């Protein structure tokens, strides 16, 4: 894998992405790049489910929110170091996802999709009533939580760099999976699950594994993101709209490809930038996103990359 250029491109791009704002100390740039990075993480990992295995995880935001809660809880109540807390968040959410996954992945199509929405709603509801985690108000981080990292200013930069690292990891993970036997099995499942089973692909195991794997990095990202924000509360942590936007990003850029979700995230963010002029337009955000999704599904189901691949078939080889 390291002999091909692609992984190095990702690492190179990530280094640029991380250090340009850092060395220019451009906070505004950092903030907008950070948001984009988070969306790329969400979209890329979601792509593992949608684009490879063909299962739409409508409630994917639950990994992000739950990871955020676990990390912030460990940092604020037990003074754990950030990286460890985020890591534990990732591991815990993946483990839970594996457990849940074994159950709900027996469901096909829309039932699975609805079950994921249900999981998100249920966990949001449970946490809203869970006092140790702040109930409906959530968890606030006191300023001294940032002290181990050298104070708030430095902590914000550290969080940013770590998130960019996670973004690179997400893309690399997509690449590794895609070119592996595991990935081939997943894609077979996405094409035709029954045929894949007859061919010997262990479908229940693979589905549960990818569901669990697709939870890990978003959960860690949630930990870092909410640490940086200093606060986490149920409505923001489990926001279904963000979940849906991740789906639109994957479809927009091209599901099943590696760069697709990244492209989609950037394009969608640009679009949102134009629309987010006034709070009043936030409702139209949903309308636009919906109309966009509909157009993509109807006319360009392969998204931007799919369109490029069809128009210029040679790009298939290097533009994954």
């Amino acid at each position, binding site marked *: 894998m390291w002999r091909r250029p692609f992984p190095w491109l990702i690492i190179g791009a990530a280094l640029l992405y991380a250090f340009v704002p850092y060395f220019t100390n451009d906070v505004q740039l950092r903030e907008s790049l950070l948001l984009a990075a988070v969306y790329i993480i969400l979209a890329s990992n979601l792509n593992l489910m949608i684009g490879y295995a063909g299962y739409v995880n409508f409630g994917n935001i639950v990994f992000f929110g739950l990871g955020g809660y676990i990390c912030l809880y460990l940092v604020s109540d037990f003074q754990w170091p950030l990286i460890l807390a985020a890591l534990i968040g990732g591991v815990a959410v993946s483990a839970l996802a594996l457990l849940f996954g074994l159950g709900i992945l027996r469901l096909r199509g829309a039932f699975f*999709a609805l079950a994921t929405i*249900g999981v998100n709603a249920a966990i949001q509801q449970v946490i809203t009533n869970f006092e140790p985690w702040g109930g409906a108000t959530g968890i606030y981080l006191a300023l001294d939580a940032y002290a181990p990292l050298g104070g708030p200013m430095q902590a914000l930069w550290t969080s940013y760099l770590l998130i960019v690292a996670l973004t690179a990891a997400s893309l690399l993970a997509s690449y590794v999976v895609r070119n592996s036997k595991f990935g081939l099995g997943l894609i077979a499942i996405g094409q035709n699950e029954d045929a894949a089973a007859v061919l010997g692909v262990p479908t229940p195991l693979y589905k549960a594994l990818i569901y669990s794997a697709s939870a890990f990095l978003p959960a860690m990202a949630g930990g870092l993101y909410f640490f940086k924000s200093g606060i986490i509360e149920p409505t923001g942590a489990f926001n279904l709209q963000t979940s849906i936007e991740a789906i639109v990003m994957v479809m927009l850029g091209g599901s099943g490809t590696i760069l697709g979700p990244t492209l989609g995230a950037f394009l969608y963010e640009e679009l949102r930038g134009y629309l987010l002029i006034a709070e009043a337009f936030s409702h139209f955000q949903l309308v636009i996103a919906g*109309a966009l999704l*509909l157009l993509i*599904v109807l006319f360009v189901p392969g998204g931007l990359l799919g369109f490029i691949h069809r128009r210029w078939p040679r790009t298939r080889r290097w533009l994954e």
Partner: protein
Amino acid sequence: MIGILASVIDGVLVGSVYGLAAMGLTLIWGVMNVINLAHGAIIVLGMFVLYLVATALGLPPYGAIPITIALGFALGVALYWIAVHRMIGRPALMSLLSTFAVNMVLIGLGTALWTTSPYNVPVAMPGVAWQGYTFTGTHIMAAALAALIAALLYLLLYRTRIGKAIRAVANNREGAELSGIPTSRILSLAFGLGVALAGVSGTLIATLFPFTILSGEAYQLKSFVVTVLGGLGNPAGALIGGVALGLIEGLATPFMPVSWIPIVEFGLFVLCLIAFPHGIFALKRS
């Protein structure tokens, strides 16, 4: 004890409306193997039709019902040609996403029009008193109307030529096509019917409870639970399933806070799907 019984009976009444909603969903699934993720949004639109008719226009509330049926049918046919037609035969993922996209558009437009504030349409209906409990008139009326509409649907499906065509297409699309049935048109009619049923169930629910533009989600979940209980593609099962769900809600309501009920339903949903993938009253599909 009587209190619980009253709650259960009330649950059964409301449940029949859930059953009606689920019938719309299960009809579409049974005929064209598409799960309409805009179902919840359409239920909400039905609610707002009641609001517009009764409050804005000042017409008698139950007059909204034929209006919703007509509008719902038209909307359904339009939605079929816009978002569903090209998805037939493609992987299920595609129709999921396209109907979900429609859902987003509808909810987005609805929010822009009506915001997320609660709406309530007071409907005056004399109740029935029994053993110190009063069964609200609107609940009884809603159940009666749901049963009536279900009966009309049955007549349509089993006693008319169109109904026969729908059942033929549901059973074997290629065979129906070969017999000269314009299957795409029939599918659009079936979709229109399903949407009309969802819409009118929303109108009925609005006579019972206050609502917001976001209420659709909870009722969509209930519809899915019912569809799973009753078996996909089985309208009669949907009605029975709806009543069963209402019954379960009636049993649960005295014992737990309202906000937990959707979670119980969700849990039930997932359990049922895992235990009975084809529904409890499933039609035997090979």
